[in-house]
């Protein structure tokens, strides 16, 4: 681990929330424009978080303070790990752990809405798990290692070998960014049956932490797109922007679906494209 890696990690820890917040702001402005509205100021997400930070300390179960902190810290940690070219599998495990904490925070309130949010968040972690493992497996088949570092120094961009995985990745990104049609666990707008689901019993600072963690997570998943286009910085940037735009558009042209439809559709996509991709790669004997 040389110094560059540490610098990378630190940069990620500082820059990701800033970029993530800005992107969220862009998202909200663009969404508003798609809906024929003016929308909030670009910096609105930061105002929101700042406000939440200064709210009264109130909770439905004191453990949620520690759980949300854990969620934030671990997400940031996974991001830092990814930024240092660390082990992809490990990044995923640590993300899963982070989400477990978020889910536990929701469970701990023992309130029906938070509880159902927790169950649905759990379902979405479950939905996500196969594709993440397949993604890691794909990287391994391509580079012979789980390290993102090796993926990044590939000569041929990963998308050539892993197009199917990429497609699934885009699909689950909708779930990850909590966008329609798959925002099953925290209806972002709260006009749905869940009343904010997972975060419904969190308030003030806890909620702010979840929000920041969400920015981190957004950056983590967006930067994973880099892995598919390693070696082509311009192409990667274009891809990330396009994917992000695509997600916003998708958010605006779909109603929300039920969790059953979410599981079915995403797993079908995973099975067809993800598993299909890995099988083909496996039959071809991997790249190494």
């Amino acid at each position: 681990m040389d110094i560059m890696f540490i610098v990378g990690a630190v940069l990620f820890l500082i820059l990701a929330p800033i970029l993530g917040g800005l992107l969220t702001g862009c998202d909200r402005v663009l969404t508003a424009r798609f809906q024929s509205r003016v929308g909030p100021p670009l910096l609105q997400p930061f105002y929101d978080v700042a406000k939440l930070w200064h709210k009264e300390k109130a909770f439905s179960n004191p453990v949620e303070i520690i759980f949300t902190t854990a969620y934030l810290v671990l997400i940031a940690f996974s991001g830092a790990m990814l930024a240092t070219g660390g082990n992809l599998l490990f990044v995923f495990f640590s993300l899963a752990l982070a989400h477990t904490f978020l889910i536990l925070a929701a469970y701990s309130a023992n309130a029906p809405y938070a509880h159902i949010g927790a169950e649905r968040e759990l379902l979405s972690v479950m939905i996500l798990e196969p594709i993440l493992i397949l993604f890691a497996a794909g990287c391994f088949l391509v580079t012979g290692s789980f390290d993102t570092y090796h993926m990044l120094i590939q000569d041929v961009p990963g998308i050539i070998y892993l197009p199917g995985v990429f497609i699934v990745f885009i699909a689950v990104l909708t779930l990850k960014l909590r966008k329609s049609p798959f925002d099953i666990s925290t209806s972002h707008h709260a006009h749905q049956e869940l009343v904010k689901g997972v975060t419904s019993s969190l308030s003030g600072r806890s909620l702010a932490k979840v929000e920041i963690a969400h920015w981190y997570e957004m950056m983590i998943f967006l930067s994973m797109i880099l892995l598919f286009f390693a070696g082509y910085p311009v192409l990667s940037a274009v891809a990330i922007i396009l994917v992000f735009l695509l997600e916003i558009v998708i958010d605006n042209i779909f109603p929300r679906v039920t969790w059953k439809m979410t599981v079915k559709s995403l797993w079908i996509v995973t099975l067809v494209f993800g598993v299909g991709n890995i099988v083909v790669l496996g039959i071809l004997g991997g790249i190494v």
Partner: protein
Amino acid sequence: MYPPELIAILILLLVPVSAAVLLAVFKPDLVRNVLAGITSVIIIGASVFLAWKALIAPVSLTLEHTEWIGMLLFIAEIGVALVILGLSIKYRKILPLLLSVIQLILILILEFFGIAGPHAMTTFTVTGLSAVMVLIIGIIGTLICVYALGYMKDYHDHQIGVPVRKRYFFALMFLFLSAMFGLVLFNNLMWILCAWEVTTLCSFLLIGYSRTPEAMKNAFRAVWMNLIGGICFTLAIFFLLRINTPVNLLSVTDLLAFPNVSALTIPLAFIAVAGLTKAAQMPFSTWLTGAMVAPTPVSALLHSSTMVKAGVYLLVLFAPLFSQTWVGIFLALIGAFTFLATSALAISQSNAKKVLAYSTIANLGLITACAGIGTAEAIMAAILLIIFHAVAKALLFLCVGAVEHKIGSRDIEDMDGLLVRLPLLATMMVIGISGMYLAPFGMLISKWAALEAFLTAPLGYVFIAILAFGSAFTIFFWTKWLGKLFMRMNRPPAEKIALHISEKLSVIVMGVLVIGCCLGFPAIITGVIIPYLNGIHPYFYLGNKGFFYFDTLVMLGLMAFILLFLVIGAFLGSREGRTIAPYLGGRAVDSEGRFLGSLGVYKEAKTSNYYLEEYFGEKVLLKPSWVISGVLIIVMLVLGFMGVMIWI
């Protein structure tokens, strides 16, 4: 003078049996407690010593006069078959009767007409693998027995109709340990078969302990399924004996070193089936899920350290042979499929013991898959899984048992807010559950190892896909359980009942063991597994690199550090702030946790987990799984008879 290793081995083999006899004789609780305590200390001491010795250098010892030991064991084996036969007649169970008759005949043929010539062979071998098993049996097994001392007292207070037969119970428990030690220490397949049959008998009797009709039904199911395994084992020996070679194939060491693996496919297939039955793989899983009618220590023993581990031990033992055949690949497929199916099934269960049972089967499935693939990485993953699973699962069973006696239910739905109600047990449960699936705890590392192993195996992509979905299910059912424990209480807490000292002790030690294993896993890998792998087969040489690198360790360490930090934060952090009522759509709850609902009725604001029964219920999944796994087994046997090899 015997070498100290031999003394240790003899202690392990004989002390539990003798203790069993004594326990069967003496009635008073005090005598039993003292006796069991002393025996446990001796066993733990001896197993630690033996394992330590074996880790320095593999032990292999040859005794003289093995003929009469063989004879003794043969008589024991006949005895086992006769007991089962007798009980089957008494309870009018046709299938077990039939199978035990077949088994009896096979054994007799083997003994009197077989060609089991007394070639000289090593009597005991203690490799890294057996050392691990010895430690598991020695420490976890005895801890469970100690736990049972307190548990059985409560058990009879709760289960009024059940006749008190504690002497019988404890005698069987210790006998079980002896048999297990034998199974992992013997080098002669005939002897192993004998130990194998004794474990079948013990588990049968223990499952049927309460003698309720349900218990008897499940006990007989266990016995007939395991008898199939026994028969397959015997058949494997038959086929081994028919191979014309000067090498004594009944010696495990010689068998492993036998170069012409293509000749071994048929016995390997039978051994695979034997292992599958004992490890409760699909389609034989129902005996293990049925076994939870037994008192919890029995379940713990069966699940974590003995019975099922015997099955996978056998498979892992022969993994190097499996790795070269298609039998192995199909064995692995069965295991992987079992992992997938039972992980899904576990989602639909709310009975804590049943969840644990399915998760056991799932983990064994993963181990079986690794054993079937049999490459170096796979074996490493398998051994890691065996270790982590044994400690975490034993801990969980003990916790569930103790909790059940406190709250009067083993339903996960009733465990809400357990962390407030029973802090110690719940904390241990949290440790156990985390150990089962969360990073940076043990199982996850093993899963990782398994992933790498699968990736380099033939048909690896199939295994990857199965693992990907299976582990998704795993996350689901563990997390929802974990969530229950952390819930805020809406109800007044239950009254406090003191935990029996033996239960407390075992649970705490087990908890420490789980954490210890997780922290010490690099040592386990370098100190135990790699030497074992390097030792068993030259082509297995893995070097020192292993699958983990330095930075991974650093990362794991960092993660553990973060967690530690958070735990400390949880203890020291300020809890000041206002507690607001849970959001109930504007409704408020009263002190009983109820709100005013429609029709003027007060209702409890109750939350329950999802069980997705329409997708993952037993009704939906069991039958298709049996069919699929049955087909896989048949294909495996056919491949065995065709002797198809993997060309590398």
